[in-house]
């Protein structure tokens, strides 16, 4: 068998997920500053863990499968960590301030591509 022997487990997990959705929504209306996003992600991760462990049966799965899932999540965390770390510590920002972007986009809209200054050698 690849399922819980007691089927009420699924209902209980579902109710937990509904409750956690309520938590997500109510916390979103409280101003926690930068913590809002982090708390929302923490709650979402808890919900994801419940889905993985019980609905997807990771709790009863082979070690190989569990190891694979942990590796994939770890890879995504490396990606996020590396990318955000880079972004936070850049001296020269890759992104222009929004005003500049807006100005150049407006410019593009008004003048079209033909209005762009010619590149060298064109």
């Amino acid at each position, binding site marked *: 068998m690849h*399922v819980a022997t007691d089927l009420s487990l699924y209902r209980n997990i*579902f109710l937990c997920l509904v409750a956690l959705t309520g938590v997500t929504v109510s916390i979103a*209306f409280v101003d926690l500053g930068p913590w809002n996003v982090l708390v929302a992600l923490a709650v979402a991760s808890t919900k994801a863990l419940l889905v993985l462990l019980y*609905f*997807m049966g990771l709790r009863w799965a082979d070690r190989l499968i569990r190891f694979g899932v942990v590796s994939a999540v770890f890879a995504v965390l490396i990606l996020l960590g590396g990318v955000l770390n880079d972004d936070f510590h850049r001296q020269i920002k890759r*992104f222009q301030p929004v005003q500049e972007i807006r100005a150049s*986009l407006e410019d593009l809209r008004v003048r079209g591509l033909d209005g762009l200054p010619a590149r060298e050698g064109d």
Partner: protein
Amino acid sequence: MSASESSHLEHQFDDAEQQFGAANLGMWIFLLTEIMFFGGILAAYAIYFVTFADVFEEASNHLSWEMGGFNTLVLLGSSFTMARAVAAAQSQGRAAQARWLIGTILLGLAFLGIKAWEYAGKFEDQLVPGRNFSVASEFAAVEELFFSFYFLLTGLHAIHMVIGIGLLGYLAARARRGDFDRSYFTPVEMAGLYWHFVDLVWIFLFPMLYLLGRH
């Protein structure tokens, strides 16, 4: 070995257990690539969010958290019925199996219906990136960027759901025919893994898209 087990056992496998293990591993590897696929887009989203947090919060408030929240509940419900369908495939008759699968399909269709309604609203409110995009904001270009992510992420998610509903329809027909029992239920369990994964993606999309600027 029961008659149905032997008829489902492909010749390259020693026994049903090994055959299931192979299918399971293959499905999980596919899902791991999906985690990294969505992870990559979420990383891009994260960069723009930390760069333009204020504007993204403002843009996020154009979305209806009530609709998103309701859809979250619908999708969680469909995951519940899917889990019961997998259990039914192993321990219940064909009628019960088909019932849980069809219940999952109906909830999936409900989700897509609400999503379509939301999309229609976005078209009406000129929030679809492109020529007609228009918001009364100083940073309209950045809001447009937010909506590009919104449509990319929810669109990819919806495509996954359409595929999932197709799979479940096929499985419901097979369940009704009596294809699945204690000795063979691999397709239902694999479709279940896929369906739960789609639910899992939405669990992250909902707070990241709908709830950014509510505080």
